[in-house]
């Protein structure tokens, strides 16, 4: 596929985050997972008020602090220093996960190893026999948020498909994913399976299908 690989330009990580950011309306309460999803907040302008939540009891995070303005007690779930916007608030872990489990978050965006076309997500362990898998808050977020989006590379480093008919890695939650942003495409998870909403410039539908195990659909 070297010929086609030259014919299109995958989205960069910044562009992936930017595309997801542009789909988040003002007023939503949003939790961003560790990794690329965290970058999304960089692309939401401050005057479009989106309220970012972190599992460790932080609601209303602003951008990363300048180096000389770090508040040592103010971190997010990824243990990065953050700032608070006016209107932010703190709570304890059980209250924070009440927001998650109680369906109060409009959106959670996570990274993933695999997403199946029925919305199953696998993002916490790469083997049933992982010695000490670390789940963190991923299962709570996947099961609890009103919407789950995934932001990830379209294929794994070894070229294998990450958009699959059935996850082979241990599940984080069944049937939870509503939308996937990859470096090649944006896809909705529907009753029909994956529906392609957009693709990287120069990429054809067949090119995308060739890099995807699950069957792809065009919008109805």
């Amino acid at each position, binding site marked *: 596929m070297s010929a086609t690989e030259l014919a299109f330009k995958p989205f960069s990580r910044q562009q992936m985050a930017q595309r997801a950011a542009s789909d988040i309306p003002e007023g939503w309460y949003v939790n961003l997972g560790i990794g690329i999803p965290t970058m999304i907040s960089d692309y939401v302008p401050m005057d479009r008020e989106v309220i970012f939540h972190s599992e460790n009891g932080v609601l*209303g995070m602003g951008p990363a602090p300048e180096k000389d303005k770090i508040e040592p007690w103010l971190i997010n779930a990824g243990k990065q220093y953050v700032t608070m916007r006016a209107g932010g608030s703190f709570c304890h872990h059980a209250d924070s996960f009440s927001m998650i489990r*109680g369906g109060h978050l409009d959106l959670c965006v996570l990274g993933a190893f695999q997403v199946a076309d029925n919305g199953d997500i696998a993002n916490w362990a790469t083997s049933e026999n992982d010695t000490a898998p670390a789940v963190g808050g991923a299962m709570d977020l996947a099961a609890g948020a009103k919407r789950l989006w995934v932001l990830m590379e379209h294929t794994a480093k070894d070229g294998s498909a990450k958009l699959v008919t059935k996850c082979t890695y241990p599940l984080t939650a069944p049937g939870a994913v509503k939308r996937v942003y990859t470096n090649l495409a944006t896809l909705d998870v529907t009753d029909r399976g994956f529906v392609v909403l957009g693709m990287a410039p120069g990429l054809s539908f067949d090119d995308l299908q060739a890099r995807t195990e699950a069957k792809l659909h065009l919008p109805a």
Partner: protein
Amino acid sequence: MIDKIVQSMADAMAGIKDGSVVLLGGFGSVGQPNALIDGLIEHGAKDLTVACNNAGAGHVGLARLMELGRVRKIVCSFPRSSDPVVFETLYRAGKIELEIVPQGTLAERMRAAGAGVPAFFTATGVGTKMAVGKEHREIDGRTYILEQALHGDIGLVEAWEADRWGNLTYKQAGRNFNPICAMASALTIVQSQHIRDLGQIDPDHVVTPGIFVDRVLHVPYGDPSGF
């Protein structure tokens, strides 16, 4: 710009449907969303289920709502009051349904609804008529009963301070059921004594974060002793 502050009672009540489950904050005369209850009366929604600690007193507020025939069912712990004539008259006439719930179970059922817990075990009520028909289970040598989450379609809340994101504080014993009504309800409507600029409420002192609040109406009525 997010602005949950509404400018009129009509805006505060917009869209409340007949048949709604309404959770009310307040305990005694403290922390009661009296203005919002009057707004609900004015709004006209009927066939309501109302959950709160008491079943109204005198002929005002919740008692008036009941007197007008708008309430199908009351879920409460203590239907008595200094002047319970409205409730008692309706109840004896078979015109209102009553579900008595121990006060702590009522509170925990609301909190569970807000926290995404559909059901939980509790020892409260075991061995009493409250336990009749409920699932029993022995856990670590003690018997518990299973209680269900209590969701509100509408939550009416009284706060001390609010900002345009819907962050709330409460004054003293005015907190009571208000924070859990807020978190348990699909549409949470707040009357607040004070409106603060965003950022004026210390993030460490917010009691109900705005994520649990949909609308805020400024109702500076003074102190609750007149009610």
